[in-house]
């Protein structure tokens, strides 16, 4: 019987670890990173760099979280971001109006994702397939209209546009970081404190029961895509402003996979219905810190993806609860 008490202790330790594993992983990584010789890891500037470099994908991951919680997936986000950014840049160049560019970006991003959602729900095609197709379509059309190259911002006509992302608040905080946290606050609020947010969880958990609770489940699933579309628009604005351009072949590559990785690392289950918006934040931090650590520790850059892969699998393993075994 001594066995049971040690087992109990071990169980409670295990359950603490599995409930808080993401935070523990982040802390462990920060700890390891600081051990590196002459590490600049803990400097504010380094931290801001990490956040700035991952803000764009991080914002997309926030939207991705809703879509995954609702029981779907979107593989077209990177290509869609390029398409939206291309539209935005050309509008800004043509009219010189930054405001118009932003409005069009948001409208276009939301509309495109809504269409995706409608095909998924009304057409009853799995989102994996629909968005795989959409990815090809966005990429191809972008290349067609940009003739395989990119669109560059006309800096004379709209000098303010590049400031959107390149301005440093108080000279220290890059604006993309601010946008990321505003978006995080908004999406966190929606997930926790709105009817829509609750319904998104319900649909992902048991669609049939949700429908039979008198909820228009198709509408909810489409709206989850629309929210992702909004996130993609914001990402498109940040990215095009920061780079001053958008490229049909080199921009947005593998963003969908990185965004999915962030959500999954953050404990948002691919089964739907499970996970928290804060997970998408932790997921971004973890991916960001890995990329950064590898540079700081002087590891061969070719190994970055191997580490990412390990972390993705390890994170999901850690978060698996006993009850799901």
């Amino acid at each position, binding site marked *: *019987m001594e066995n*049971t008490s040690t087992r109990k202790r071990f169980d409670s330790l295990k359950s603490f670890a599995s409930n808080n594993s993401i935070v523990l992983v982040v802390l462990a990584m920060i700890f390891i990173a600081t051990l590196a010789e002459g590490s600049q890891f803990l400097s504010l500037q380094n931290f801001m760099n990490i956040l700035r470099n991952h803000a764009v994908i991080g914002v997309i991951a926030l939207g991705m979280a809703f879509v995954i919680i609702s029981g779907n997936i979107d593989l077209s986000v990177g290509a869609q971001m390029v398409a939206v950014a291309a539209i935005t840049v050309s509008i800004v160049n043509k009219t010189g109006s930054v405001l118009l560019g932003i409005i069009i970006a948001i409208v276009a991003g939301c509309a495109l994702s809504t269409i995706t959602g409608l095909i998924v729900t009304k057409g009853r095609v799995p989102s994996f397939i629909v968005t795989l197709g959409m990815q090809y379509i966005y990429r191809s059309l972008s290349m067609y209209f940009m003739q395989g190259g990119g669109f560059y911002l006309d800096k004379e006509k709209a000098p303010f546009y590049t400031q959107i992302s390149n301005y440093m608040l108080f000279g220290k905080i890059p604006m993309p970081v601010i946008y990321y946290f505003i978006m995080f606050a908004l999406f966190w*609020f929606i997930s*926790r*404190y*709105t*009817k829509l947010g*609750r*319904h998104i*969880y*319900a649909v*992902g*958990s*048991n669609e*049939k*029961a*949700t*429908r*039979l*609770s*008198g*909820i*228009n489940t198709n509408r909810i699933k489409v709206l989850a895509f629309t929210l992702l579309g909004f996130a993609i628009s914001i990402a498109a604005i940040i990215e095009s402003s920061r780079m001053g351009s958008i490229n049909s072949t080199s921009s947005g590559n593998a963003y969908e996979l990185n965004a999915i990785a962030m959500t999954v690392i953050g404990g948002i289950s691919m089964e739907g*219905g*499970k996970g928290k918006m804060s997970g998408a934040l932790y997921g971004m931090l973890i991916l960001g810190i890995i990329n950064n650590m590898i540079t700081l520790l002087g590891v061969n850059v070719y190994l970055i993806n191997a580490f990412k892969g390990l972390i993705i699998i390890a994170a999901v393993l850690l978060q698996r609860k006993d009850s799901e075994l």
Partner: protein
Amino acid sequence: MENCSLQMKDIVKSYNGVTVLKGVSLNVRQGEIHALLGENGAGKSTLMNILGGVVPKDSGEIYLFGEPARINSPADSQALGVAFIHQELNVVNDLRVYENMFLGRELYKKSGILDAKRMCEETEKVFKKMNVSIDPRQMMGELETSYKQVVEIAKALLMDAKLIIMDEPTTSLTQKEIDNVFQIIRGLTKDHGVTAIFISHKLGEVIDFCDSYTVLRNGENVKSGSITLEDGTKIDQTEIAKMMVGKDVLSHQVYEEHNIGDTLLEVKDITVGHHVKGVSFTLREGEILGITGLLGDGKDEMVRAIFGDLPHTGTVIKKGQPVSIKHPSQAKKLGIGYLPPNRKENAIIKDLSVQDNITITALEKCRRGVALSRRKERAVAQEYCEKLRIKAGNILNKITSLSGGNQQKAVLSKWLNAKPDIMIMSNPTQGVDVGAKNEIYAEIMKLAKQNIGVIVTSGEAQEIIKLCDRVLVMYHGEVRGELSRDQLTEENIMILSTGGSLN
């Protein structure tokens, strides 16, 4: 003890400090069908899970076929000849019958290729032993539910199981299918010395089919004995029910007189595919209308159509206004609620808490400004937990942490909170223990007294008789007859539901 297949002595088990088994004993003789009875939460499943190696016991002893048994995993249990057939069927519909039988233990030819022929032969041998004729090459998905159950039993026999545990095997079966399954089990116990333990809430079945019983309550033994008494008669159903709940509940009168008001809902000529063929009826305020019939006779399809969950033709008129209901969300807006059958699949949202499951139908009531107010949600959930006596440790725990009866009460709460004026309930007490059953009946009576029109569909004649003011009996998608409260007898219902007529 001689001839004992199974002896469990003083089994103790606790979860997180809560003792669920307080020294329970169970003796099962070889070759008998033993019923393990008790309300949800009495400890039956835990006891069987210990035997099946699913959970470890804290203390106690187990003897299988006279030998002390060490069971630490499901594999141990299997190796000792115990087969556990769970409530949910573990079959793969997209594989053939023989492939299911040999899943994970496939037979190979010398060349390393699957030996389909031999697997089919072995499967057929087992079926022969059971006196059933199923083609081993048929797709599992094409079989009726009872045959799927039979295949599960066959699988147990294939593994040389000498003790078969069945956890509520009959909840999804029709009467004919139940008879079928039991006949097969009876044959096995008689001719092949197999022993069976049967967990059920359906006392009628237990008395018809089992040899002996053990009743548990709150993790303790209440009584064990033979179903057939010394004088040759069988034990009374009410008596067993009393043992299960510890108080006299079955004779408890459910129906109470109440006022019936104006016409609330008129359904004209409703047709749903080939399931429902032009049915018309009316429902009045404060009326409890029963719709019964055998499984597959269209009652559930009809109410799902009215709730907007199935496409249909026909007219629905609510309070004199023709309405078009194409989606459950429209039905909800019109004040119609629906408690669906098969709770796990259709009603509970497994990743949400008890509280979130209760408030989901009417979240707009729990808002402050645009934001949801957790405090208001909590108040609503607590209100219903008290009203319906839902036993939940913490309403912020997942709904799956509740017992079946409490889950059902939570599902009912979510609709009460939406304040419908028409409430449709399909099999409202499916998979619910006796105590909770009566509480749900009482709640239905209360609804009627509040002038809500209630439609209850159920295949259990007793339930219909207990509750309803008026009953439609369906047969092959049509209403075969209507019974008023004074005509309500099991016999009349049976006559109509099998296609006969009353004179």
